[in-house]
């Protein structure tokens, strides 16, 4: 499964701290990180806190990854300014909503704005829409971020998350 591939890549890259806001699309990955004794999964009250967490951890010499839904990208815009100005490495894994097959119209505006908003703030955006590509895409994002002091977001297509209705989401 693609969340397992991501977890393997994070672990192999030495990521020991994972910040997240709970999200249905990231459910399995969050559980894998929580179960991993070599990782600390930090639940956040808003995605913005993850940027402070990641920046502080890097000051202290530790690699992080942030997990969020596309709506959360709207919550981190201003603080991405610090990431850019300070050249903090950052890896953000974004599960997309408001994209392919969305059922909640309120998700569409932010979902459609994710890429231009991130790019406007200097974050490099990569896209994964095939489960089998996930490992290599995340591996490359981690290397780009931590070898080149870059902010990199991987957008995970809504097609891979595959929730098609409120009822199905609630049942998860």
């Amino acid at each position, binding site marked *: 499964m693609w969340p397992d591939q991501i977890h393997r890549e994070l672990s192999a890259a030495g990521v020991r*701290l994972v910040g997240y806001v709970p999200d249905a699309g990231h459910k399995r990955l969050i559980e894998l990180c929580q179960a991993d004794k070599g990782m*600390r999964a*930090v*639940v*956040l*009250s*808003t995605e*913005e*806190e*993850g*940027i*402070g*967490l*990641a*920046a*502080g*951890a*890097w*000051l*202290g*010499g*530790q690699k*992080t990854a942030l997990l969020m839904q596309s709506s959360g990208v709207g919550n981190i815009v*201003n*603080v991405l*300014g*610090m990431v850019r*100005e*300070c*050249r*903090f490495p950052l890896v953000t894994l974004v599960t997309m909503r408001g994209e392919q097959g969305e059922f909640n119209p309120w998700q569409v505006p932010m979902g459609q704005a994710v890429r231009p908003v991130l790019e406007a703030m200097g974050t490099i955006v990569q896209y994964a829409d095939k489960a089998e590509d996930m490992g290599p895409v995340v591996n490359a994002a981690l290397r780009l971020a*931590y*070898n080149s002091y870059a902010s990199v977001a991987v957008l995970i297509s809504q097609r891979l998350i595959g929730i098609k209705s409120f009822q199905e989401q609630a049942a998860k």
Partner: protein
Amino acid sequence: MKRREVVEKLLSNRGDLLVVAGLGSTAWDCTAAGDSPLNFPMWGAMGQAAMMGLGLALAQPKRRVLVITGDGEALMGLGALATIGVQKPANLTVVVIDNERYGETGMQDTHTAHGVDLAGVARACGFNIFDSQQIKNAIHNAPGPNFASIKVEAEKIPLVLPPREGALLKARFRRALLGPDADAE
């Protein structure tokens, strides 16, 4: 109390303390007490000082970490107190220098001028609360997360500015803390 005197006292004989200074007056206060590569003064990212402290404290569990920030900055990131309360970092202290004003924007009232009790919020989130006399010892010795809100005069005082370039502030902090490892792959 006067903010510069409070901060100077907190940072005197600081040993190997790691310091994150929140956007605005507290960054200038920390610089007035003596610029150090082991200060990370924030020129932006308002609301994130406490979370920077959490990230640093989790990455460096053997070092003591102090966040010094203002009431306005802390109010913008109140959720961080809850997040820190859940993580319970034993080596982290957050001190709010509370002048009940937004000092950089024209001294407008913050919520603390109207009864909001930041120490009460922090206590409810799981911090250990100290007063202005106890906090210096707690920064170095008490199991955290620790918190103090110190009321100071609302005064306009000369700016004492740290370096502005973010990448420089980051790099000098990492080199001072991590040595050659800071530049290793």
